[in-house]
Structure formats: C-alpha cells, structure tokens
C-alpha cells in the first residue's frame, strides 16, 4: 500500500479505501470505448464531511481527484488520471426529503437516477430527464454531465430540474447553492456553473431537484419512411404545427436492419427512416395531437403509420427504438456512441452527411437519436484492435463534428467533453470562450487537482 492509500485509510477506515490492483483495474474506465488509466486508490465516502476531508488532504498534497458515480459516462469524464484518487460516490445514496408541497426531492448525489424516478412516481410526480443509462447512472453524475434523454424536446434536460446543489470545493470547503424558491436572484446563479462541469470545478454531494405532475395520458405512434427527407420534413411540420411531442425519436436504415435482425419485429428492411412519436398530457389533447401527427406523417409520404391502441401495443411500437443501441452494440466488438447535435432544421442534412462520410471512410455508422431536439447518435461499429479501421473512424468522426459545428450545431449534445471530445472543443466554442472556461477553472481550482486534463488542458 503506498502512502496516499495509507493516509486515506487512517482517515476513513480500510472498508472505504481500495488500493489493491484487482480493485483498481475495475475503476480504470467508464462506458467510453478505448480509454483507460489506473488510479492510485479509490475512496468510497459515506458523508459530505468525508468528501471534504479527502479534498483537503488532496489539496494539501496536490493529488488529482477524479469524481465518479457508476461510471456510465460516454466521454471519458470519470476515467482516472494516472495515480489519482478516485472519489466514488455510489455509497452516498440517501433520500433526504421528498417535499410534495413544493414538488421537490432532495437526495445525495450517489442515488441512482432510476431510484429518483421511482420515488417521484410513488408520490404521483415525474422526474422527466431519462438518460439511457438511468437504471444505474447516479444523479450526481447526471448533474455533472448535464445529461439529456428521450424527452428533451418537451421537458428539457437535467439542468432544467436542478434547484439546488451542495458542492465540496477544491480546498475542501462545503457550499450550498440554490434553494426551493422558484424565483431567486440573490447573487450569481452559481449552481449553474457546476451543472455540466464534469467534476472539474467541485464535487457535487447533494442535489435538490424539481418534480412535475405526472401526465395523465400518453399515445404512441410509429411511422416508416422510404426517404430520409420525408422523415425530416415530418419532424419540421410537427414542430411548425405547434405540437410539442414528448418523444420524437428516429432510427436510420442501418439501425433498422440491426434491430430487425436482433428482435424480428417485422420492420420493413427497405425503410430509410423510422420515427417514434409520443404525445403526453391531458387525454383529449393527447388524442388530438396523435391524430395530427399521424396525418402529417402520411401527408409527407410515410410508407406506414401505426397508432398504438393500448399500453401493450405502445410498448411494442417503442421496442424498436428502445433496443436500437443493443441491436447495434452486438454487431461488432467495439461500439462508439457519439452525440453530434444540430438545430432541428438541419437534421436531414446532417444525417445524409453522416451516411456519406461512412461510405467515404469505409466505416459502419448506425444513426439513431432524438429528432425532436436535434441530438443524433451516430454509432460507430468497429474493432479497437483494428488500428487501420480505427484511424478511419477517427477521421470520419472529426469530419462529422466539423460539419455539425458548421451547421450551427455542437460536438456533444448530452455526453460531455471529457477526454473524448477535448480535441474538438476549441473549434466548437472558439478561443475567447475557451479562455473564459480556463479562467473559471483557475479561480475555483487554482492547483488544478479536480479531474485535471478533462474538457481542456
């Protein structure tokens, strides 16, 4: 055991400090492909005070600290810095308060997102953000990455639900930011600085979230298109018709094929695009919106439009989208899930560009994603052992990000920058913005011990 682990063990006890190689290997990565490093030790705090104690020790000794929840990130944000302290927060997962009068829930940051949803649901409420990893991702991780999900168009993202945070700063100081007030303009909105900060500015230990009433009804439809543009136009027409569906999801040709091969749902293999649409809210409005969306899809030349008549049929229709990632992930050894995002009006253009780029570099990319908010998931099906192909994947990826930015979009809609997108950030946000980010980091973490080397150098 080296000195750092020994010191931390003295502070927190041997149960909460891991340093054996068989432990460290398993905290060496997150859900990002091909990124790995070995920490010096892993600490599993149970209280904010313990987090503060660890940070004070790290600050004194200038040891890097990498925060981690369940390690489901897709940009390498929680991949350790060599010899760092990994601060894994999964054991801080208590419910502090569910306030049905103010519609808020206050939890420790290690609580699994699904649990937050279940607690809200039991009180007849909804916590809308639903990132794909919600069954195991922690709410603290969601806040640190400002995670999205399938309901972004209507309900927004994690940031829209964070009312307050408890954060431990780089020097071990504990600050409480925000409160239950809907309106609060006392000082800078500092909580917003920490949302999406990827563990580089402070360690989030408690989260106060806004909840909303559960919608009474939901209606699900699935439309199949033989032309990509027809699908794109359908989305534009739905938005133009002042309908705000809670789901407007898309699968491209490759994804449809993979899903059909895996699930045998009876999807047409000549489909260029499939749209899954859902409306939720008051039953009468939901009924009317579903009817309108079906009409719009047919009017734009959909090959088929299926309207679910009951919950069971709805689940069936949603199966294609729900299994999209699984269907792609089993095709090849390495799956790289990206999240290039563009304004909605540019979706058809972007999807076409991705397909052309895949052909140009002879790589396989299945694209699915959130049409409603312009957030696409071009998914590279490759093999990290094949260096020649990986080089082509890198090139294709760079071109796709460049194109997204040139269309007024962004390099990442919901996964964060971390290590994976670091090289693309300067082009995406510009030098002046990057300098502002650096200054902020320097103010809050002068010794650069919090997740150093992530987002930017």
């Amino acid at each position, binding site marked *: 055991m080296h000195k750092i682990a020994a010191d931390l063990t003295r502070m927190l006890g041997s149960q909460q400090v*891991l340093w*054996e*190689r*068989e*432990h460290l*290997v*398993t*905290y*060496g*990565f*997150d*859900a990002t*492909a091909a990124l790995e490093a070995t920490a010096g030790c892993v600490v*599993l705090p149970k209280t904010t005070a313990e987090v503060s104690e660890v940070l004070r020790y790290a600050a004194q000794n200038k040891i890097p600290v990498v925060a981690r929840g*369940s*390690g*489901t990130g897709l940009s390498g944000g929680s991949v350790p810095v060599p010899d760092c302290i990994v601060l*894994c927060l*999964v*054991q801080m997962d208590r419910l502090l308060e569910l306030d049905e009068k103010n519609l808020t829930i206050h939890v420790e940051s290690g609580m*699994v997102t*699904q649990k937050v949803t279940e607690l809200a649901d039991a009180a007849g409420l909804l916590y809308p953000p639903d990132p794909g*990893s919600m*069954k*195991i*991702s922690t709410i603290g991780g969601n806040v640190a990455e400002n995670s999205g999900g399938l309901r972004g168009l209507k309900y927004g993202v994690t940031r829209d639900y964070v009312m307050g945070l408890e954060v431990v700063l780089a020097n071990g100081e504990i600050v409480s930011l925000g409160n239950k007030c809907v309106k609060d303009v006392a000082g800078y909105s500092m909580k917003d600085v920490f949302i999406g900060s990827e563990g580089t500015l402070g360690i989030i230990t408690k989260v106060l979230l806004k909840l909303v009433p559960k919608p009474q009804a939901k209606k699900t439809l699935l439309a199949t298109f033989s032309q990509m543009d027809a699908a794109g136009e359908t989305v534009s027409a739905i938005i133009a018709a002042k309908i705000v569906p809670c789901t407007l999801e898309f699968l491209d040709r490759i994804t449809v094929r993979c899903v059909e091969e895996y699930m045998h749902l009876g999807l047409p293999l000549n489909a260029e695009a499939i749209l899954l649409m859902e409306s939720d809210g008051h039953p009468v409005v939901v009924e009317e919106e579903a009817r309108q969306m079906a009409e719009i899809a047919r009017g734009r030349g959909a090959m088929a439009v299926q309207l679910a008549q009951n919950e069971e049929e709805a689940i069936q229709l949603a199966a294609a989208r729900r299994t999209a*990632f*699984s269907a792609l*992930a*089993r095709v090849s*050894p*390495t*799956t790289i899930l990206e999240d290039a995002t563009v304004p909605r009006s540019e979706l058809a253009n972007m999807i076409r560009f991705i397909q052309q780029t895949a052909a140009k570099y002879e790589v396989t990319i299945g694209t699915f994603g959130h049409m409603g908010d312009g957030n696409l998931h071009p998914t590279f099906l490759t*093999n*990290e*052992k094949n260096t020649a192909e990986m080089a082509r994947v890198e090139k294709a990826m760079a071109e796709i990000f460049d194109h997204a930015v040139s269309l007024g979009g962004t390099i990442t809609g919901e996964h964060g920058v971390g290590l994976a997108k670091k090289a693309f950030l300067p082009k995406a946000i510009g030098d002046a913005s990057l300098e502002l980010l650096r200054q902020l980091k320097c103010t809050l973490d002068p010794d650069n011990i919090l997740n150093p080397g992530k987002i930017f150098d």
Partner: protein
Amino acid sequence: MATQEELHQALVDIGRANPEGHQGASTYLKLLDYSVLQQCIHCGMCLPTCPTYDETKLERNSPRGRIALMRKIADGRLEITQAFGQELYFCLGCLTCETVCPAGVRYGEMFEHARADIEQVGVLRNPVRNFVRAITLRWIFTRPQALRIAGRLIWLYQASGLEFIVRKLKLTRLLPARLRALEPLMPRVQRYFSDALIRPIETPPNQKYRVGLLTGCVQDLAFSQVNRDTADVLLANGCEVVTPPAQFCCGSIHAHNGELELAKQMARRNLEGFDLERLDALITNAAGCGSHLKNYAHLLQDDPAFAKRAKQWSKKVRDIHEWLAEIGIRAPTTSLRQTVTYHEACHLCHGQKITRQPRQVLRAIPGLELVELPESTWCCGSAGVYNITQPEMSQKLLQRKMANIGTTGAQIVASANPGCSAQLEAAVRDSTLNVKILHPISLLAQAYRKGDAQG
C-alpha cells in the same frame, strides 16, 4: 481395485500444486476467442441487476468489473492471483447480466474459463478444499453408482433417526463451525431413486412423441418424485418416455467449478447414453442441468469425434415447460384450489430465457391462482454449491427471497430447479412461513392424478 487407484489418482491430481507449471498465467481465458472478451462495452447496465454488486456497491463485485479483470488476464497484463480467484468464486454465476447485457456478452463462458484457469494455477488450493473437490467433482459426480451410494448413506442417516438424535443431542456442535452451518442445508434424500420409480420405457395409449428423460443428480436423489411426475406429465401429453436407469451427471457442476475437461468427459458419456435419432426431444426438469445440456454443442465444438452429435443433442434438449408449451398442454379437468407464486431459477430465466412457459403450466391448472413474486428473477443464493462455498452472501439472498415470498401470501412456491428447491425448503423449515416448495410439473401431475381418481 481399479476404482480405488482412480480415486487415489484423482486426489493426487487435484492436490498437485501446479501440474503444468504456469503459476499466475492463464491458459483457458487465453484460449477463448478474443471477441468474446472484447464484446463488453462496459456500459454498466449489468450493475443494478447483479446480486453481489447490489449488496456491496464495489465495482469488482460486478460483471463489468470481473470482465475487466478477465480481459487483463487474457491480455497477460494481470496475473491470476488469489484475490482474482476469490472474486470469481464470489460470483454466483446467475447469468442475470447476460439477460440485460445490451451487447450480448457471453459472461457464462468467460466465467467457466476463468474458474478453469483458477483451478489450473491453483491460487485457491488448500488441503481441505482439495480433498472435498477430489471426492465430489472427481469421484462422486463422475460415477452414477458412487452418487447413489452417497445418496443411500445420507438417506440412512436421515431415515434411521440418527439425524434426529444427532440434532436432539446437539452433536453437530462437535463439528467445525463451517460444517455445522452446512448440516441443515442437506437436502432430504428420498427412499426411492428415479430408477426405482420409472421404468426404462413407458408408453402412453395415444403416443404422439418419443422423448428421453434426463433424471439429473440432486433431482434423482432428493427429488426423485419430480422425475416420476415429469414422466407422468409427459405420458399424459402423448409422449413415450425413455429413461435409462443409470445416467451420468450432465457435467454442469464440473463446468461451473473449473473442471472443463471433466465437463467434456461427462458430456461425451451422456451423448453415448441416448439413441438421439430415435428421440423427438431430450427432456430435463432441472434448470441448472438444462442450461448446461443445451451448451454441449459449444462445449464439444472442437472435438472431432463428438462435435456433430453434440450439435444434434443441443438441438433436441428441451426444458419440460418449454416442451409442453411447444406441443400444447392438455389441461387437467379437476381443479387445485390453492395460491401459488413462481420463483424463477436463474438457469431457467437467464440461462435459457424461459419465463413464459412455466407460468403457462401453472395457469393451465384450473383453480390454481398464480400470484406474481416480487423480484422473481433475483437469485435465491443457492447457485449450485454457492450456499456451501459462500454461506454469508447466500444467506443474505435467501432472506431477501423469503421476505418477497412472504409478501405474496401464497401457499405454494413453484420452483423448477433442485438447488433452489433445497435452499428454499431449508429456509422454510427454519421460518414461520407456512409454504410448500413444489416443482410446477409436480403440481400439474397432481392435478392430472386428481382428475384420474375422480373420473
């Protein structure tokens, strides 16, 4: 006697510190097709469904963590250490992770190879463990006669009243703590084994199919009535039942405990025991066996003499519920007015993805009310010999299972795996819960019998 020499050899083999001299390095994981190891995309979706991770919240105790270790070992970047050995034996092998894995990782295969490596390198060896493994894996579970003799001895102990006296006088206190904790787990061995209850060939009047019946090991000794019930249910559904009186262990216990070569031997012996061409299906009623029996094709794929036959075998193996669903269940005419809940054996729901069919069997019985069990697919902690090797974690899982059973208010718990049934029965004996543990097929057989008696 040759057999005595063989036993001696078995003890010598298993006790040898390191027969091949590869201290720390992998043979089996390295032999695996690399794509199997590489398939994990470390997304973490397996974590919330893993009973050991759920308990400890330590990454190492999750499938994703274990796969990372296995991959490092296959890459030659990590030695096979004692900690690795302990980790792989802390895993239940419940395969829940395979059910939820978006990337289709074949965890079971990696797990078997890892345990084979651990045994070959010998990081967990100690005299007691070596001795127990030699006696059980190499001796008793490779010889049908030895297994039945062992069963007979346990039966004598239990039926003669000796067990009663030992317990009454609390003589178990004389045993080492570990063994003392195990004594109550011993399943009740039956007076008659399957060969005494089932004739080699039984033919129904309206024969439509001809099937082989696999009688299992624990099933044969502790639940032989389930085998009789299975034969009765098959007969009632137009199947001629072929049951060789002496059958070999399917080898799942070997494959799961790091003896892959022995597992292959057992598979070959079983392949020789049945005339496959003349059978429509091979029926098993034990989830753990079924899951492994279906894997013979894969296990023997590189064996030129047996690969073809093993493929044919795997195609014909059916879990009894699966088979009944395929051919259509004849509904019993009389009703059983009871409430039942269904505990899903891991190797049925995760190992074989059979979840619908056992419920179909239960629903086919008039009057029987099926109450769904919360967390029905969560492992009960039996997991082969896990309740013996990891009593602490096993007990935690068992308590969780019993608490869930308690909430259903059911009078019967249906379970289709002898390991689970023995584990649950032991727990019921110790609790105030008044429930019976029965195989779904036994319930169906009861209903048929009641109908015959009335009609």
